C-alpha cells in the first residue's frame, strides 16, 4: 500500500510553527470559535470542511464518525463528496483508507486510489488521485476520521498533514461539545416526556408525584408511573435504570412501556415483574433496573406489592407512625433470569398513605443509608399526597443532587 505514516514528534514541531503564522489556519480557528455557539453540528461541519478544502487546496473533504463505540465509521459530512453522505457510506474500522486511520489513530497519505487501497468505490469513481486523512480524537478515544482528496496527482505534504491535524482537533472538539449538549438536552426532554403528564383521577385514591433531574450531571433513568386499566385495576410503578445519559433514558422508556404492556396480560405484580425481567434479559442485555410495582382493584383497599431490588416504600396509616414496608426484595431486573418473584399484600385503610421513590431522594455519600431511610420514614405523615411530596422534598433534599429523583405518593381517600 502506498501509505506513509508520519512521525508524531516532527508533526508536533511543525504544529507550533504552522499554528503561529499560517493565516489560512488562523481563519479556520477563528471560524470555529465564533461559530461554535451558533451553528448546529451539521452546519458547523459543513463550514469547517469548506474552509479546510480551501486551506489545503483540496477538491474533496469529508468527515466520517464512529457511531457510539461501534466498529463502523459512517459518512457524516462532505464537501465535493456529497454522495458519500447521501448513500450513508459505512466503513469498518481496519478496512481501507479511513478504516486504517481509525485502527491506527495515525495520519495516512495515500497516492494510489483504487479498490486495493480504499473500501469506498465513490472515491475512485470520482477520480481522486491522492488523499490525506487524520484521526479525530477526543481524550485519546477515536471519534472519527477527517480526510481530504485531490483530483490531480499532486501529493499531500507533511505540512498539509500538520494543518489537517490542527483542523481535526477543532473538528473533534466541536463535535464532542455539541454532541454532549445535544445528548443532555435530548435526555432531559425524553425523560420529562416519559413522566406522566397527568396522574389518574380516580374515586378512592389521590396521587401526587415529583420528578427532579440531577443538578450536577447528565440525566439518569428514573421514572414513576400510575395508570388505570378498563375495569378499574390500578397500577403504580417506580423504577430506576442504573447508569446515566441518553441511553439510560431510552432504556427506561422501553422498559416502562414493556411493563405497562405486561399489565394487560397479567393481574399479579410478581408476574408482571417476572415478564419484565425476561424482557430486560433478552432485549436490554447488560442493563440493571430496580423497580417496585403495586396494584389494586376498587375500592383499592388491598394492594399487592412486589420489588426488584428497589428501596422500600414508606407506609403510614392514619394516626400511626410511618414504617418502611417489609417486602421480599428480589434482585434487580436483568440480574438473574431464574429469579422467582414474590409479592406482599398490604391493606390500605382510608387515610393511609404510601410513598414510592428512587434512590436519589435518600442516597448521600457521607450518610449511611439506614440513617437516611429513617429520616424519610419519620418525615412521611398521613396527609394529602401533595403535602406529603412537598414535605418530603423539602426535608430530604438538603444539597445539590447527584442523581435524579422520582417520588410518587398515594393516599386512600379518607
Amino acid at each position, binding site marked *: 500500500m502506498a501509505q506513509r505514516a508520519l512521525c508524531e514528534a516532527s508533526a508536533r514541531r511543525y504544529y507550533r510553527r504552522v499554528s503561529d503564522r499560517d493565516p489560512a489556519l488562523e481563519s479556520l480557528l477563528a471560524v470555529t470559535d465564533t461559530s461554535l455557539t451558533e451553528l448546529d453540528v451539521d452546519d458547523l461541519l459543513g463550514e469547517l470542511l469548506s474552509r479546510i478544502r480551501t486551506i489545503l487546496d483540496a477538491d474533496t473533504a469529508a468527515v466520517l464518525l464512529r457511531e457510539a463505540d461501534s466498529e463502523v465509521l459512517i459518512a457524516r459530512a462532505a464537501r465535493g463528496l456529497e454522495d458519500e453522505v447521501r448513500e450513508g457510506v459505512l466503513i469498518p474500522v481496519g478496512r481501507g483508507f479511513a478504516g486504517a486511520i481509525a485502527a491506527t489513530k495515525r495520519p495516512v497519505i495515500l497516492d494510489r486510489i483504487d479498490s486495493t487501497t480504499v473500501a469506498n468505490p465513490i472515491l475512485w469513481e470520482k477520480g481522486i488521485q491522492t488523499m490525506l486523512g487524520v484521526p479525530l480524537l477526543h481524550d485519546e478515544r477515536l471519534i472519527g476520521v477527517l480526510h481530504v482528496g485531490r483530483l490531480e496527482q499532486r501529493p499531500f505534504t507533511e505540512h498539509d498533514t500538520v494543518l489537517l491535524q490542527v483542523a481535526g482537533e477543532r473538528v473533534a472538539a466541536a463535535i464532542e461539545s455539541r454532541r454532549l449538549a445535544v445528548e443532555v438536552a435530548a435526555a432531559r426532554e425524553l425523560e420529562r416526556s416519559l413522566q406522566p403528564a397527568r396522574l389518574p383521577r380516580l374515586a378512592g385514591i389521590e396521587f401526587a408525584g415529583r420528578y427532579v433531574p440531577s443538578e450536577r450531571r447528565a440525566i439518569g433513568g428514573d421514572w414513576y408511573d400510575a395508570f388505570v386499566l378498563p375495569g378499574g385495576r390500578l397500577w403504580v410503578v417506580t423504577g430506576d435504570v442504573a447508569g446515566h445519559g441518553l441511553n439510560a433514558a431510552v432504556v427506561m422508556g422501553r422498559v416502562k412501556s414493556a411493563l405497562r404492556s405486561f399489565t394487560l396480560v397479567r393481574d399479579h405484580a410478581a408476574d408482571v415483574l417476572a415478564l419484565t425481567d425476561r424482557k430486560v434479559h433478552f432485549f436490554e442485555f447488560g442493563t440493571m433496573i430496580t423497580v417496585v410495582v403495586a396494584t389494586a382493584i376498587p375500592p383499592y383497599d388491598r394492594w399487592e406489592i412486589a420489588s426488584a431490588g428497589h428501596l422500600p416504600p414508606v407506609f403510614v396509616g392514619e394516626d400511626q407512625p410511618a414504617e418502611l414496608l417489609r417486602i421480599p426484595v428480589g*434482585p*434487580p431486573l436483568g440480574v438473574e433470569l431464574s429469579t422467582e418473584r414474590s409479592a406482599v399484600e398490604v391493606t390500605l385503610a382510608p387515610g393511609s398513605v404510601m410513598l414510592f421513590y428512587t434512590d436519589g431522594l435518600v442516597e448521600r455519600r457521607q450518610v449511611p443509608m439506614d440513617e437516611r431511610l429513617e429520616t424519610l420514614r419519620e418525615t412521611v405523615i398521613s396527609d394529602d399526597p401533595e403535602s406529603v411530596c412537598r414535605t418530603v422534598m423539602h426535608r430530604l433534599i438538603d444539597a445539590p443532587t447527584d442523581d435524579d429523583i422520582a417520588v410518587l405518593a398515594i393516599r386512600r381517600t379518607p
Partner: protein
Amino acid sequence: MADFQITAGEHGAASTLHVAGELDLAVAEELRQAGLSCLESDDPGLRIDLGGVTFIDSTGLGALVNLRTVANEQGKTLHLVDVPAEVNRMLQLTGLTDTFQVA
C-alpha cells in the same frame, strides 16, 4: 472526589482486585474494565476486595453484577471479599445478597 484505585494481586489461584473509595458512576466503568482484564486470564475465578469502599451506588452495584455475569458465562466464580457494612447493607436493600458469593 473518589480516591479510587485498583491493584491486581494474587490470592492462591484467583486474582484479587482491591477497590477503595467511592464506587459510583465516575469509576464504575473503570472497575468493570479492570475486572474484565482479570477475567481474561486463566484464573479459575476473581476475588474483589471491597475493604476500602466508602460508598456504592447503583452504577457501582451494576458493575459488580456485570462482572459476575461475565465470570459465570466463563464457568468462573466471583467472590466479594471484606465487604464493609454499608456495602453489605446496599446489597441487602437491592436484593443482591444471594446473587454474590461473599467470602
